[in-house]
């Protein structure tokens, strides 16, 4: 036993893992009847010589390709990458929710996966009942849950509502309880997917602390995240995925900084030239999205003092419908900084439209931002007809500013607005007090 821990031993070992998905409409030959007859024939198919493999379908795409990875016991691996880069697919394969299309992985030890907090919570059941149900779904034994019950309740700070059906819980309470159960899993390997992007800041910190504690106990953790700071702080190693392949690997700080530098600014200006293939549908298609300073050259860098323009150019194809754009801006911690909506009540004519909004100077903090765009039909909040996540990614740099005073560190806060402070003298001190003060 001693030798195995000294040599480290692999907790996870992946070899050439790939996962192929079909997108778009189902292939026409996949009817109910054929599925049944396929199944009946399947045991006999082995007798038939294998062909050159399935024909390549244009509507296939590889969410993950040729991924090899070795994770020693006790390592904490951060997995970063844009949405759709394959992070979640990797976690789903390792937690055995889905099978890889090719390659294989070997996992030694008990695995706990936390791809979503509160999986299996039932709103009609009470908090107490859900702790047991959720624990069992996550793979805990009944005795184990009973033993940790008090600890879980204490961590979630929900003892008063234990016998209340969870449908009456606030979303914060729901998440706290969900995370508390998961955090008390006794596992060797923990797979985490972005679960910390939820909850209030205080609880997030508590969760990070719990994970750190878990890592300290020699658990192996695989942690997919958009939060570069958390990856830097928690992980012993990091990889960056792009289009299903590992593009960066190494120490967390170097991977995250190279990721921010190299992979993100590429999306400050995206252009789709062909109206036929541009993202969208028969109502609206995207031509261009970009972020540029309000004044000066489009390529100039943005600082916290620069007012800038977020500009979308779309082909509006449906003439008689009213479409409104909604943009959501996220910072590098995955926090939604703000949502802004085009409230124009008029129905724009069909054609190529340019729709933009301006972000004033001295509002945004420095950091890396992502913008997602939704298109709503007939007014904001109604049906979403198109949705583009992480459409733009850009960086806002710090700048010398009188706002900062003598403080040179990172300015905390999701935003950094320049607000007007004012000092007024309401009344002078009474003479007696003024005398005392001057004597001191």
């Amino acid at each position, binding site marked *: 036993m001693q030798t195995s821990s000294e040599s480290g031993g692999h907790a996870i070992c992946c070899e050439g893992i790939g996962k192929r998905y079909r997108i778009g409409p189902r292939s026409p030959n996949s009817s109910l009847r054929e599925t049944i007859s396929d199944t009946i024939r399947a045991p006999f198919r082995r007798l038939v010589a294998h062909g050159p493999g399935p024909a390549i379908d244009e509507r296939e795409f590889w969410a993950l390709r040729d991924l090899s990875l070795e994770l020693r016991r006790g390592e904490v691996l951060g997995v970063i990458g844009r949405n759709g880069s394959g992070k979640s697919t990797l976690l789903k394969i390792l937690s055995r929710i889905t099978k890889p299309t090719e390659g*294989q992985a070997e996992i030694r030890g008990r695995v706990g996966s936390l791809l979503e907090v509160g999986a299996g919570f039932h709103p009609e059941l009470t908090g107490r009942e859900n702790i047991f149900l959720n624990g069992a779904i996550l793979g805990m034994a009944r005795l184990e849950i009973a033993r940790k019950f008090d600890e879980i309740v204490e961590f979630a700070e929900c003892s008063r509502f234990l016998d209340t059906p969870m449908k009456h819980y606030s979303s914060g309470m729901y998440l706290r309880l969900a995370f508390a159960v998961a955090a008390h899993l006794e596992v060797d390997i923990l797979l985490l997917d972005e679960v910390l992007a939820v909850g209030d800041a205080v609880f997030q910190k508590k969760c990070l602390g719990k994970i750190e504690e878990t890592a300290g106990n020699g658990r192996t953790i695989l942690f997919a995240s958009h939060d570069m700071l958390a990856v830097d702080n928690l992980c012993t190693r990091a990889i960056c995925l792009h289009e299903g392949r590992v593009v960066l690997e190494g120490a967390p700080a170097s991977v995250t900084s190279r990721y921010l530098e190299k992979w993100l600014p590429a999306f400050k200006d995206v252009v789709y030239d062909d109206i036929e293939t541009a993202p969208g549908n028969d109502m609206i298609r995207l031509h261009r999205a970009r972020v540029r300073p309000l004044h000066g050259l489009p390529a100039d860098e943005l600082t916290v003092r620069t007012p800038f323009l977020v500009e979308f150019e779309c082909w509006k194809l449906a003439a008689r419908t009213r479409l409104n754009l909604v943009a959501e801006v996220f910072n590098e911690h995955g926090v939604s900084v703000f949502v802004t909506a085009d409230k124009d009540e008029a129905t724009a004519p069909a054609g190529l439209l340019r729709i933009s909004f301006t972000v004033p100077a001295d509002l945004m903090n420095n950091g890396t931002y992502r913008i997602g765009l939704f298109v709503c039909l007939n007014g904001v909040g109604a049906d979403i007809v198109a949705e583009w996540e992480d459409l733009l990614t850009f960086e806002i740099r710090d700048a010398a500013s009188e706002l900062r005073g003598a403080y040179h560190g990172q300015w905390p806060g999701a935003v950094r607005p320049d607000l007007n402070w004012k000092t007024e003298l309401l009344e002078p001190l009474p003479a007696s007090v003024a005398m005392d003060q001057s004597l001191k």
Partner: protein
Amino acid sequence: MPTAQSIQPAGQQKVTIRATDTAWNLQWDELWQHRELLYFLTWRDIKVRYKQTVLGVTWAILQPLAVALALAVFLGRMIRLPSDNLPYPVFAYSGMVLWQFFSQALTGASNSVVANGQIISKVYFPRLFVPLSAVLASLIDFVISLLVLAFFLVYFHILPSANVAFLPLFVLPAVLSSLGAGLWLSALNVKFRDVHHIVNFLVQFWFLATPIAYPTSVVPERWRVLYELNPMVGAVDGFRWALRGAGTFPSQSVALSVFIAVTLLITGLYYFRRVEDTFADFI
């Protein structure tokens, strides 16, 4: 090395994930390891079913009772269907009790995988427990409504013979065939949501093809074997035979019933195991 946290030595549990896997391997060890989850899923299904209802678990009794009464009034009294030497209400209710279990188990199991899609796409656990827990939850309701059947027998002064000891035995084909068909339909439902609609229709059709409201004896002799391919025929006939304690044992229909039920179960298990790895990709 006295540390508070004890970690299992590496290598104690080793899992290999690869593209292909044999569907014949049922992974009994894994099912056994997670057996408590089956209990919790069943418990949840029962608990949730009667939450926020006034009558609660009484519904388990009321549903078959109401249908049996309707059958007794319309078919027993008005049309005067034969009922194999049993008072028609007892005849109808005894059939309905078993039928209620079967239809509830089949419907529940068929929809179970899609209904639990949220968990299935986010957590790994033996998928087989999902339809299985739906069947088990219906079985609990069945046991409750069985108690009412006892009251019926007392009321109509029917003294069960020693055959009544075999009663649970005839529940078995109903359990196996509802699970077998449920495995097929729940797995197909993931890819083809048509199944959801088919099941409703299937259950109604199946009801008419099962001797609940009428006895098997009204089915013409030359169609009998075909009719008895329905596994519920043997189950219901055997169930009533055990209750009545007289008459000839319906050996042919019971044998066919067991055979079909086991076939359904084995093929269902095979198909379910073959596609369960893709559930998360389609849900």
